[in-house]
């Protein structure tokens, strides 16, 4: 007999002590851990743990484009392949790329493209492979963050890093960094990404309803969260090299 579990959402998304279901404050991020250089065969790679999300990203390139008709004679292209593992969600996900994955691949491509100097690499492609091993809300934001990190690790010239976070509204209150259940049962969901070289939004999607004032406040909350995420990104990139420096220093003493 097939196991049927209906999606049951709690009536309240806040606990009695005023905190969110996982014990966070309204504008608190989930714990984030980033690491670069995790895959030795890729030109650049990164791993991200964002709450329960676990995501790998690998970068190859610049290299020849296959199929060949996609190549542009005057500039390079960025191709992003976002995939979810079959075991990453509660009910087995079909492994074939579906509508949602194609959409997310496209939005990540459009989001990261402005920071790259693609005009310097005509006829070639940078390819980013994102594999979601475990998903719990906000994977498109986490994937954008980790893809930018992997590109930086590969030594691709970039104008700046790209950071991304989702903000939203649950039970009438504005919150930052929605988890899976808040995403599904909440009132509004607003993923956004920023390119730091011009301080402009590179991604803005919206689902739900929210007043204009709430939107403005959400975006300023997002800005604060994005600054924290950017700090974690730069630290992760530097740590790969500073850890070797420290090892060498210890060896000398």
């Amino acid at each position, binding site marked *: 007999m097939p196991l049927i579990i209906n999606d049951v959402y709690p009536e309240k998304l806040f606990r009695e002590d005023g905190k969110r279901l996982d014990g966070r404050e309204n504008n608190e991020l989930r714990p984030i851990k980033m690491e670069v250089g995790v895959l030795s065969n890729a030109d650049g790679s990164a791993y991200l743990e964002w709450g329960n999300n676990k995501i790998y990203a690998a970068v190859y390139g610049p290299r020849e484009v296959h199929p060949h008709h996609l190549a542009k004679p005057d500039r390079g292209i960025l191709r992003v392949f976002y995939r979810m593992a079959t075991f990453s969600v509660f009910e087995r996900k079909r492994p074939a790329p579906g509508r949602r994955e194609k959409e997310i691949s496209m939005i990540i491509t459009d989001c990261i493209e402005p920071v790259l100097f693609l005009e310097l690499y*005509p*006829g070639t492609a940078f390819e980013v492979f994102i594999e979601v091993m475990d998903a719990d809300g906000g994977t498109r934001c986490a994937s954008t963050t980790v893809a930018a990190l992997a590109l930086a690790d590969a030594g691709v010239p970039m104008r700046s890093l790209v950071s991304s976070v989702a903000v939203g509204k649950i039970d009438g209150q504005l919150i930052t960094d929605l988890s899976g259940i808040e995403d599904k049962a909440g009132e509004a969901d607003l993923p956004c990404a920023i390119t730091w070289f011009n301080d402009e939004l590179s991604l803005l999607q919206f689902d739900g309803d929210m007043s204009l004032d709430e939107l403005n406040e959400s975006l300023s909350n997002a800005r604060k969260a994005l600054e924290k995420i950017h700090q974690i990104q730069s630290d992760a990139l530097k740590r790969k090299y500073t850890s070797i420096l420290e090892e060498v220093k210890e060896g000398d003493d």
Partner: protein
Amino acid sequence: MENDDLESEELDEFESEETDREIVVPGEVLTEDVEHFNPGRGTILNKERTKIIALNIGLKQIKKNYINVIPLRGFYTPRPGDKVIALVIDKNPVKYKLDINAKDTAILKPKNAVRRGKIKALRGGAPGSRRMEAEEFDIGDILVAKIISADRLNMPELTLVGKYLGKKEDGIVISIDPPKIPRIIGRNGSMIKLLKNLTKCNIFVTQNGRIWIKGENIEYERLLIDAINKIETEAHTVGLTDRMSQYIENEKQKRGIK
């Protein structure tokens, strides 16, 4: 011994000790003093021309009034004059195609593959007329070649006419990250001299990140490969040459090599 004195002179600037070993990430603001500093290698001015920002993950270096970022990771971009180790991947009567670890495959035309010093007089030809004999290669051959032309749009073109260039019949080829090649050579070739003296190996370093090695025996070659890998991981640290000579001496004792 084949040496790369020319290359080490060219790459001297990357090996400057004045580099303050500060690691920067893409987008990091290097300075807001645009009047006294100019953006150099690996940097860019922002749109308002008020800040100089880094483009790569690398080490910040201030040279005169230029700010450079020496990359720690990256890929090889062919430049005319570079020596490269190339692998023949395709051949036809008109040209060879070679893999040079860049985004495009390189081309070698037979007119640039003339065997050195072997120009024969044509039988029955006019006096003084000579025939150039092009060398033949097979798919899978390893060549040391020089780039004669390379740009953004066209495939790079190679030549085999020159000192130290030609087919390699023996030895081992290993690959490292191309930005770390200057470290293998060292300031004025100090590191490469050290490696050669201590491991009794012939080394030929090329700018596309490939290194050709030929030693007296396999133990020395293994030791050298380990040493090169160590240099690659510790490329951004200070005092590397001294540490490497210590490391090789220690490893020699451990492995029982004289």
